[in-house]
């Protein structure tokens, strides 16, 4: 018995040595840069709404920042709901989201600080060119009510694909249903085959809506970035309710001591700087013929936010 214990111990030790060898060598392969760079490269971890990522805007913004601040920016693309969840746990340094109501709650709970508005654009209701529900040029609320009515009557012809993932776009969709006079839980979800909950990002949702010749709500930026890949066309794009405001906040370091707060500050200040705002304004114009995002600078009235939220640097 004693022998077998000794034996087991020996095997475990050998195993541990092999394991250490394994991780040691491959760990070195995996991250060659941090060990070879003498000056410490800091890493900023951002959780972002999918639209800022799927359009390519964030990749365009991060490169100059990385150079200027000798930093590495890591981006996790998730819906606003997921991003806020990561933030609440202190698992990221910065969040870029677009849902004022939940942002306000997040700030009030003390999880986030220093919210700045960085850009805006508009949501559009897109659908098949044949427009089977006939919603073209209606108000958003009328259009939603019509899609529901026609969808309930003929789900083979009229469908709506929802993000269904607690994202900012999903939140906006719920607001439109509510404003149009419906109870989201009882009147919309599970009300019939016409309503499809995708449970995925904006780009993927557009692809699903395209496959199913269905209507969906999209931010104009992601729609334009996907325009060549799908046949859906914008049908409703007018209405105050379609305003889409993007913000950045950092995680409260007092609540979550591990977060990289100073670099998070730099990132926010970088985003509201005139040069970056110009980059946002010009982003995608060459490729898509129109801007995907409008800069926040100078447009606080359009967005209905305080001027300080657009201009004041974080200190």
């Amino acid at each position: 018995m004693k022998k077998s214990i000794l034996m087991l111990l020996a095997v475990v030790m050998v195993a541990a040595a092999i394991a250490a060898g394994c991780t040691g060598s491959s760990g070195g392969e995996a991250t060659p840069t941090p060990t070879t760079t003498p000056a410490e490269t800091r890493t900023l971890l951002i959780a972002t709404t999918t639209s800022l990522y799927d359009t390519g805007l964030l990749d365009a913004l991060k490169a100059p920042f990385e150079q200027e601040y000798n930093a590495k920016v890591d981006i996790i693309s998730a819906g606003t709901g997921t991003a806020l969840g990561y933030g609440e746990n202190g698992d990221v340094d910065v969040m870029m989201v677009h849902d004022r109501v939940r942002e306000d709650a997040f700030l009030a709970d003390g999880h986030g600080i220093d919210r700045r508005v960085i850009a805006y654009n508009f949501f559009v209701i897109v659908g098949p060119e044949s427009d089977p529900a006939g919603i073209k040029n209606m108000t958003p609320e009328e259009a939603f009510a019509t899609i529901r009515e026609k969808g309930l009557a003929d789900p083979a012809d009229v469908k709506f694909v929802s993000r269904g993932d607690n994202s900012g776009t999903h939140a906006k969709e719920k607001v439109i249903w509510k404003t149009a006079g419906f109870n989201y839980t009882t009147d919309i979800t599970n009300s019939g085959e016409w309503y499809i909950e995708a449970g995925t990002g904006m780009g993927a949702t557009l692809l699903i809506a395209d496959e199913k010749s269905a209507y969906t709500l999209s931010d104009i930026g992601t729609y334009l970035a996907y325009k060549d890949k799908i046949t859906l066309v914008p049908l409703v794009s007018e209405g105050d309710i379609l305003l889409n405001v993007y913000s950045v906040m950092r995680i409260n370091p007092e609540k979550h001591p591990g977060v990289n707060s100073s670099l998070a500050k730099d990132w926010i200040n970088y985003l509201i700087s005139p040069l970056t705002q110009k980059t946002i304004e010009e982003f995608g114009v060459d490729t898509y013929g129109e801007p995907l995002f409008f800069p926040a600078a100078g447009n606080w009235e359009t967005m209905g936010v305080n001027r300080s939220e657009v201009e004041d640097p974080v200190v």
Partner: protein
Amino acid sequence: MGYIIDGLREAFHLIVSLDPDVMEITALSLVVSLTATCVATAIALPVGTAVKFTDFPGKKVLINLIQTLYSLPTVIVGLLVFLLITRHGSLGFTGLLFTPQAMILAQTILILPIMTGLTISALSGVDETIRDTIVSLGATRLQFLTSIVREARFAIFAAVAVGFGRAISEVGAAILVGGNIAHRTRVLTTAISLNTSQWEIGTSIALGILLLAIALVVNTGVSLFQQR
């Protein structure tokens, strides 16, 4: 059909030109899954041997449990590891979330049961007469075990290959604990998922071909080893 042809053409180009992004993603996949397989082997081999050759109450139940966990869903492993290493989790202080190390941890846990179970099966497969012969030749306990493991090496090697195959092909855990961060935690499977949702079919096909190629190399390696 056109988009498939276009996708294949683009995939071919990406692979032949050794596109840096594609190569980086492939390399990270290999590093993560090979490391996980190494660690899991280092645990599964001794544990499997110990379970096989020691008698203790509840042994049957344990083996049954191990076999049940062969089909452990990848997202459940992802969820468990996520809850463990999120900053307020019990291992949150390690700062492992959204790192390759977290993915290694998750994949190790994922493949441990199947590798342990297959190790037990491999050892059980050694002929009784060989066992008796080893004992009758007066082998010590250590000599006995090493001989048996040597006899079972082909089957054990196959167990390692199965574990590696499961690790490199999983997407659920990798996306939950890795976060699919470009140049950091993006591996073949999570990249295919993202690129398909962005309708970057060529890239997806290229990554898929590389994933299959890795499986092919590993399986060919196992066959060659077994035929020797």
